[in-house]
């Protein structure tokens, strides 16, 4: 009992945010319910982003009804690699990544060979709402498959590593690089076994990582060090993330981005309830940082100033950057 109280006190002192605090003080406070569809439906997110001139993976087509599944062949066209996603999927469930064609069949990114019927069944499952948040009908989205930048080759097992930045009222608060592992099956979700690696907000240099709630510094599959890697185009990522506040209007989001080897930083999706493991990856609590931003906003509100994305990135980098020196 005393041990638990001690743990509680220690976590509180380090500003570690728990689920209850995240929900009460951030998600419920900053995210208006009526704006959720913008982030929950990836198709709407994509349309908004394209309208705002923000780069996203190209959308090949949308399937809305069972009848339209027949169009799948036509949508795919001659492409050998593509991604099929539920528009309202949660936690990366229901995503099918086809990496190549093999005779009449397709090969997924994890090496499994599947037939066209299996893909159609997957699309059908998506439409019936098997993967959607509320279990209601959904749309399937067929889009460009991102080819990760070569920089990740050494520290990633397979799949697409992505970069998650938590953004509070347009200010980046914390960043993490998510690396798929053999266990996660090419997916970049931490609860499925992917690694999260903290990133210094100012420089884009990786810190140590977290894997299954543990702190690590080597990738379990490649045994290469995950820390000390300089992510390219870091300021581009930061600006992209900061811009997402205007894009969706939600005050507390997790922005998931990828670095495509041809197209540069792209926004994959937004998350209105970003997970908390990013804290372990950065070995730092979120609460202190969000409080700092809230204080900064209060000061700005007193002077009647609003800052644009570029200024917000500068502020965040000034406040939270260069953690390596500590």
């Amino acid at each position, binding site marked *: 009992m005393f041990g*638990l109280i001690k*743990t*509680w006190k*220690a*976590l*509180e002192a*380090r500003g*570690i945010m*728990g*689920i*209850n*605090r995240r929900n*009460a*003080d951030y998600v419920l*406070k900053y995210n208006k319910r009526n704006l959720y569809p913008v982030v929950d439906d990836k198709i709407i997110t994509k349309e908004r982003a394209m309208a705002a001139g923000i780069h996203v993976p190209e959308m090949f087509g949308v399937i809305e009804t069972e009848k339209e599944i027949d169009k799948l062949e036509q949508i795919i066209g001659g492409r050998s690699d593509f991604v099929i996603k539920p528009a309202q999927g949660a*936690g990366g*469930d229901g995503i099918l990544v086809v990496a190549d064609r093999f005779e009449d069949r397709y090969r997924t990114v994890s090496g499994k060979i599947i037939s066209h*019927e*299996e893909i159609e*069944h997957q699309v*059908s*499952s998506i439409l*019936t*709402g*098997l993967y959607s948040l509320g279990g209601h009908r959904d749309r399937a989205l067929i889009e460009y498959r991102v080819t990760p930048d070569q920089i990740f080759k050494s520290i990633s097992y397979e799949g697409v590593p992505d970069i998650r930045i938590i953004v509070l009222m347009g200010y980046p608060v914390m960043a993490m690089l998510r690396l798929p592992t053999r266990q996660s099956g090419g997916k970049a979700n931490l*609860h*499925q076994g992917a690694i999260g690696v903290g990133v210094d907000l100012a420089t884009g240099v990786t810190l140590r990582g*977290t894997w299954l*709630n*543990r*702190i690590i510094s080597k990738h379990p599959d490649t045994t290469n060090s995950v820390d000390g890697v300089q992510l390219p185009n870091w300021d581009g990522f930061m600006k992209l993330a900061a811009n997402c506040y205007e894009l969706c209007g939600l005050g507390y989001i997790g922005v998931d981005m990828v670095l495509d080897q041809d197209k540069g930083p792209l926004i994959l999706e937004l998350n209105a309830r970003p997970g908390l493991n990013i*804290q*372990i990856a950065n*070995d730092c609590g979120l609460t202190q940082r969000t409080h700092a931003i809230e204080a900064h906003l209060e000061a700005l509100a007193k002077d009647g100033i609003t800052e644009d994305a570029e200024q917000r990135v500068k502020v965040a980098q000034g406040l939270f950057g260069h953690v390596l020196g500590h």
Partner: protein
Amino acid sequence: MRSLTLHLKVLITVLVLLGVMVTAYQIFFLGIPVTEDETDDLWNIDAKVEFVASSKDPVKVQMFVPPLNRDYVSLNESFISNNYGVSVNRADGNRKVTWSARRANGNQTLYYRLVLTKRYSTEKAAIKGATFRDSLAVDGPEKVAAEALMAPIRQHSADVETFVGETIKRVNNLNDDNVKLLLAGDTSAQNKARVVDLLLSIAHVPMEKVHTIRLVADTPQSPELWLRSFNGNDWLYFNPDTGEQGLPNDRLLWWTGDDNLVTVDGGKKANVTFSLNNSEMNAIRLAKLTDENTDADFLEYSLYSLPLQTQQTFMIMVMIPIGVLVILVLRNLIGIQTLGTFTPVLIALAFRETQLGFGIMLFTVITALGLSLRSYLEHLKLQMLPRLSVVLTFVVVLIAAISLFSHKLGLERGLSVALFPMVILTMTIERLSITWEERGGGHAMKVAIGTLFAASLAHLLMMVPELVYFVFTFPAVLLVLVGFMLAMGRYRGYRLTELVRFKAFLKKADA
């Protein structure tokens, strides 16, 4: 934000206060028992009137019966008599029953029976009494003796209370010559009361004789005489033998005044014997009885006024918030993962029919078989709705099979499985199977065990009879629960499992 917090605090305070106050009102003012086992004394008083009727005249028997306007509630009153007409009338704060018959012969026996209880008595009626009266006429040596006695009494008393007490003490001092003279050799309680009355009348203090019955079981007794005087607010009762003030709790006021208990016209040798016995009765049943027999309808707007069948439904329904509370605490405070939000509560309700151990077994068996069917269906690549329908039908068939087998084996308990909510089971199987595929078997097991644990805990709590009784009788407690739930809505502390989840931070801190 701050105003919202204040708003919430006010709301919580109001709800909790309201809940506590309503419950307190029910407990302390209405006297509704807190537990179902609470019992109360129930007194059964029989007054048996015997007399010999003369064959010539019509017979009229009059007897005082308790006025019942103080402290006690009558649950049942009956006048048992053959061939007698009965009427009850009130006069001067007394109640009198009159039995009458045109013709009667020989030994006659009449009964009066009263069942009463002390609990649930309504508020006392406004008490009225005289505070002044004229002196009784007295002269000669009595007057001198009385005045001689009065002087020290006046000196030793301050108010009506002490004055009456002092008077009674003096009258009981039989060595006093003045007292001897006034009593004239008769030291009965009746005579003493007469002398006290006389003395008090000289001081213009009103005094009334009160005849009481003692609530004590199986002891033959006759009415006991007490004196009472009105002090402007309340009656003060005095023991005529000792001058002690205050009527003991076990005395029941039968009648007041100088008249005899019973008067018989057209008969003789009237005699009244009392027999009392008491029994204990379940307090809540007593409350219901009282409610029916008096106009104190304090159960009128409670759930007890519903038809019995509806009451049983509500006994289950009022417990659902308790179950929900368990889930709330387990999920938000402890951090246990469950399938869906309220699925565990529904499963807990199903456990009512099956009993806990058997229910868990059935749930496990059906879910396990359903899961294997589901994983087989996975290969067939069916759409969701048809697949769910197949699983549901399979669950129904499975339940029917289990019922049939257990019936053949003589296990009647197996039949209760039919009441297991099938749709819930089907959804549980479906979601569990998706969880299994997406997050792996370990996670699915964790969630399934969490669900079963939450359901069992909720079930056990929802089945505690004392709790069911309490919530059903004092539904305002639910407001307190809502207050707690509202507070939980803004709880920002860690969940217990998060302390484990974030342990990595501390390990490093130690190193």
